[in-house]
Structures are given as structure tokens and as C-alpha cells.
């Protein structure tokens, strides 16, 4: 198990390094002069040249890459071109907010989607299974921005139950929770459908396996067979999916943050793109990659821990 964990960790690290390198190279080959954008149209060529040397842009790419990684290891992601704040501070400020949003969104989706999938599998092809199926597909096909806007219209504007924008007062926990509900609802909505369909499919597959028939031959209650004997196996692909979904949600939380005007990675990234604030963009993208890789790593390790073959074999 520990060897396996170490292997997976090494792989994750490699993925991070490679994707960061690719990202860096893309930024390098993209046409356009960063100094021209940073200094504006009225800058003289001499001023641009001075900045280029100061930013190390004159060096060959491998030297730049080396500088980039060595400062990365020191936790230095550069400074915001406009405000001169260290980018790492911006990441520290925004990333947790987005992560909380993604966790809540996916959390309620899993809490509802997994039991729905189990129930569908037990009641396969009966009326309630069909109804759940129709709703699941409808949820999957609803674009999340639409869910967000309608949720906003119904619960914030018409009913006025929940606040429409912002993340709540800093320090006021209750207020922050109330502000979290609508965005989390919006980004988790489609995932309820995905998860219920996935769990139903894997569950049906497992329920058809011989060992389930063997357990039935002992007269074990059907609920116990489903929840203990089958779910333990059927949930494994779901965990893998959740790991990837969480990473994916970090980026798809962008629209929710924009629609609900919540501070977070998405908001800041959008602002950085609009103002050509490359260090901030780079820092936010890097941290998203890092979190994504860590999530898939955790999911992999969790699956391994639940599978006795891997847990005891390695």
C-alpha cells in the first residue's frame, strides 16, 4: 500500500511538473509582447527593453524555465503586474473559497445522486426507476449557467429567500453559509444526474455477479446485499469520478462565481485575463492544476484503500 501510494504520488508530481512546463511554453510562444501590455502604448522602446531585462525575458527558454521552477519551489509565483501584490497571496485568498464552493456543490450532489442510483438499481425498469432516469438525464442536460440564473431568479429575486450575490460577511459563518447555497446548488445540479446514472449502471453490473447470487442463496436481506455487499464494489468507479469531478468543478466554478459575484479563483482569473495580468493568471492556473492532481491522487488512494487486493497486496 505504501509503495503504491509513493508511486502514485510520484506520478502526480510528474503530471504537475509536465503540465506546468507545457503551460510555461505556451505562454512563451504566444505572440504579443508582455512588456508592451505591461507598460502601455506610450512606452518607449528603451523602457520596454529595460523591463524585458528586469523580467528576464531576454534569456533562453530553459534558463527562464529554471528561474520559474526555482522560484516556484520557494513559493514565489511572481507579483501582480498592477497592484504589485505577491501572486501567492492572491492564490491563498481565492483558492480556499473556490474549493469550499466545489466541495459543497459536489457534496450535495453525491449525497443525493449515490442513494438515487442505488435505489434505481434495486427498482430497475420499474416506474420509479424510469422517473429517476428521466430526471437524471434532464439534470445532466441542463447547462449549469442556466441552473444558476434560474436559481437566482426563483430563490433570490422572486422568493427572496436567499442572497443573490457575494460570499457573505467575512467572519460571519452563518452569512457565508447562506451565500454558499445557491452557487453550490447550481454547480452540483448536473452532477446529481451523472452520479445517479453512474451508480445505477455499476450497481446493476455488480448485482449480476456470482457472489451476489451466492449471498442471496444464504437468504441475506436484500437491503444488506445492496448496501453492504454490492455498494462497496460499485462505489469505486464513483470515487474515481468524484476525484476528477472535483478538479473539473474548480474550473467550472468560474461561471458560478461570475454569476453570483463571489470572490474566488474564477473571478480573479477572469479579471486577470481581461487586464492581461499574466503572473496572476499563471499562478491561479498552476494552483488549479495542483489541486486537480491532488484530488485525483486522493481518489486513487481511496479506491486502493477500499480494494483489499491493492491494500493487502502492495
Amino acid at each position, binding site marked *: 500500500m505504501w509503495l503504491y501510494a509513493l508511486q502514485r504520488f510520484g506520478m502526480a508530481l510528474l503530471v504537475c511538473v509536465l503540465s506546468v512546463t507545457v503551460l510555461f511554453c505556451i505562454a512563451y510562444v504566444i505572440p504579443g509582447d508582455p512588456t508592451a501590455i505591461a507598460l502601455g502604448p506610450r512606452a518607449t522602446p528603451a523602457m520596454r527593453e529595460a523591463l524585458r531585462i528586469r523580467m528576464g525575458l531576454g534569456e533562453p527558454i530553459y534558463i527562464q524555465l529554471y528561474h520559474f521552477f526555482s522560484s516556484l519551489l520557494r513559493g514565489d509565483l511572481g507579483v501582480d503586474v498592477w497592484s504589485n501584490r505577491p501572486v501567492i497571496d492572491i492564490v491563498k485568498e481565492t483558492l480556499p473559497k473556490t474549493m469550499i464552493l466545489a466541495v459543497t456543490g459536489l457534496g450535495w450532489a453525491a449525497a443525493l445522486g449515490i442513494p438515487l442510483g442505488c435505489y434505481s438499481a434495486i427498482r430497475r425498469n420499474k416506474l420509479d426507476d424510469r422517473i429517476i432516469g428521466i430526471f437524471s438525464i434532464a439534470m445532466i442536460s441542463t447547462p449549469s449557467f442556466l441552473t444558476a440564473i434560474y436559481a437566482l431568479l426563483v430563490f433570490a429575486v422572486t422568493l427572496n429567500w436567499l442572497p443573490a450575490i457575494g460570499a457573505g460577511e467575512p467572519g460571519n459563518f452563518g452569512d457565508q453559509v447562506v451565500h454558499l447555497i445557491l452557487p453550490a446548488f447550481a454547480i452540483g445540479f448536473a452532477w446529481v444526474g451523472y452520479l445517479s446514472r453512474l451508480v445505477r449502471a455499476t450497481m446493476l453490473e455488480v448485482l449480476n*455477479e*456470482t*457472489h*451476489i*447470487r*451466492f*449471498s*442471496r*442463496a*444464504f*437468504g*441475506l*436481506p436484500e437491503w*444488506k446485499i445492496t448496501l*453492504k*455487499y454490492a455498494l*462497496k*464494489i460499485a462505489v469505486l468507479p464513483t470515487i474515481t469520478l468524484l476525484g476528477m469531478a472535483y478538479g473539473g468543478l474548480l474550473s467550472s466554478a468560474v461561471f458560478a462565481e461570475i454569476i453570483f459575484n463571489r470572490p474566488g479563483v474564477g473571478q480573479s482569473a477572469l479579471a486577470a485575463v481581461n487586464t492581461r495580468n499574466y503572473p496572476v493568471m499563471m499562478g491561479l492556473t498552476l494552483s488549479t492544476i495542483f489541486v486537480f492532481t491532488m484530488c485525483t491522487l486522493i481518489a486513487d488512494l481511496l479506491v486502493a484503500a*477500499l*480494494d*483489499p*487486493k491493492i491494500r*493487502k*497486496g502492495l
Partner: protein
Amino acid sequence: MSSKMEMEKNAPVLEINNLSVGFNGARGQAIAVKDVSLTVPPGKVVGIVGESGSGKTTLISAALGLISRQTAEITGKVKFEGRDILNMSERELRAIRGTDIAMIFQDPMTALNPSMSIGTLMTDIQYRDRGVSMTEKRRKAVEMLRHVGIPDPESRLTQYPHEFSGGMRQRICIAMALLGQPRLLIADEPTTALDVTMEAQIIHLLRKLQRDFHTSIVFVSHNLGIIAEICDYVAVLYAGCLVEQGEVDHIFHNPQHPYTKALLACDPALLPEQVTDFPAIPGEVPGPFDRPTGCIFQARCNLAADICRQVSPPLRPVEANHAAACHMAKGI
């Protein structure tokens, strides 16, 4: 029932009367089992032998109420210790399974849940004993594992199915099946997936346990050698029909039905050494949709006469405790 098996003094454990199973499909009804009657006396081993697709598994599944009435048309009667199984509710059936009737399956590699330890599997199936403590349940599990010949059972309780070999897993399945002290054990080709040495050990074990626990066994197999070794009675199934049944010695030494004779002639274990051509029965088993009128075996039978093409032969006694469904067999 024309067999004299029912002359046994004790009431039978399982009694199947004129059981037919048909599956309704787009092409009409597929008949998997036709008019089978079979009796399992207490403490005896009854073998069901037949080729693949002869309806062995369908027969026992239907007899245990494992086939849903929604998908199949089931007629006839199945009685377990006098109780009608076919009309039981799912709840009543569940109450019987594991305590009165237990099953072991063909492939021990897939029969045990891979995500649970042997100890969990074995204590879980004792869920009916509510008052019994966990330590007591584990003790019973250990005792049963020792009984089926698993060395060092205490420490193996924490292990998972993948840590056992195929033969060991089948032993565990048998231990689990016997934990509820069932009066009837259904063994559906329990050695087919094992290699030959393991096969012999498992057969030996089943024989021993059958004596120790006085359990009746229905042993399904296509291997005549194993049937001969373990069974008291044999029923030969061909295309869903019972063609011959009786005491194992009679069947093997004095087969009356041409199919049984051909089957015995094809058994590689009984062939003289150095044969270049393996004998085979010419023709094909009739499909479930196109069953002939008259005898089910006529198309492949070298004795077939006009009567065989017109009248389906009933199962009739040919000697004591031996019956065959053939017009050509000499009756008593």
C-alpha cells in the same frame, strides 16, 4: 412417479413432480425443462447429469424458486419437506435459504465477495442468530473452516478471498453452506472450475461432510466419473427431459436408455488407451424451439422405430430402483 425410489421409508427431502419450465420469447416458448420428476431421499446424494444446455441448472434453479414467474412459465410441483416451494413468497423463500437449503456454485473464484474478509462473510450469514455474540459466531466459523480442511483457520478469518486458491475458496464456500446446517445442499458443478487433484479432494470432502452432517445433496455435473464416485442415485437429463434414473450402480452397469449408453461410451476415462478417434454421439441436441413429437432422442438414436417418432416414451421401471424413458428398453 414410476421410480421405486419413493419406496424409501423416510419422507423425501425434495420432491419434484412433473416440473416444466418454459421461457417466453419473441420466437415462441423455449422449453428448458419438460415434465421432470425427481425425489431426493434424506441423507442421500442424487446426481443430475447431462450435457451443457440440457437444463440442469434451470431445473435446480426452478426447483428452488430462483426463477421468477414473470420471465418463465413454470408448471408442476416442487415440495421441500412437504412444503410447496413454487407458491412461496419471496420472504418465505428467504427464510429457507441458507438454513434449510444451501447452495454451492460452479466457480469458486467469483462466488465470494472480493471486498470482504472471510470472517465477515462467514459471520454475516449467521445473521439469523440474533442473540449470539460476535466471538461465538467467529468461533463457529473457525470450527467449520477446520472441518472443511483449511489449515490455521483463526488467522485466515481476516484474509480476503483473493488470498486463497481456487480449491481453498471452494472449501470456504462449502463451509459457508454447511454453517446453517442445511438439510439439503445443492452443488451446481462444484468441481468443474477446479483442477483434477483439487476435484478429487473436494469430492472426498463432500462425501465425508455428507456422512458427518447427514445432509442430502443434489449434485449437478456433466462428469460421469464424479457422479459415479459420489452419488447414490443418478438422473440423466437430455434436452430438458429425464431419460433415465435410478441407483448409481444400475445406471452405470446396466444402462437402458440409448443416450445413457452413448454417454458412457464417450467418457474418456472409460475408453481403452490409444484411441485415435474419440467417439461422439452423431447429430445435435434438439433446440428449445423445435422439439420433435415422440421421443426426444429419436434423431440421434440408432434404435429409433416408428413408435419413437409418434409417442413420447414414459419413464418406466426396467428393474428395481431403475427407470428409463425408452420404448426399446425391456420393462419389468
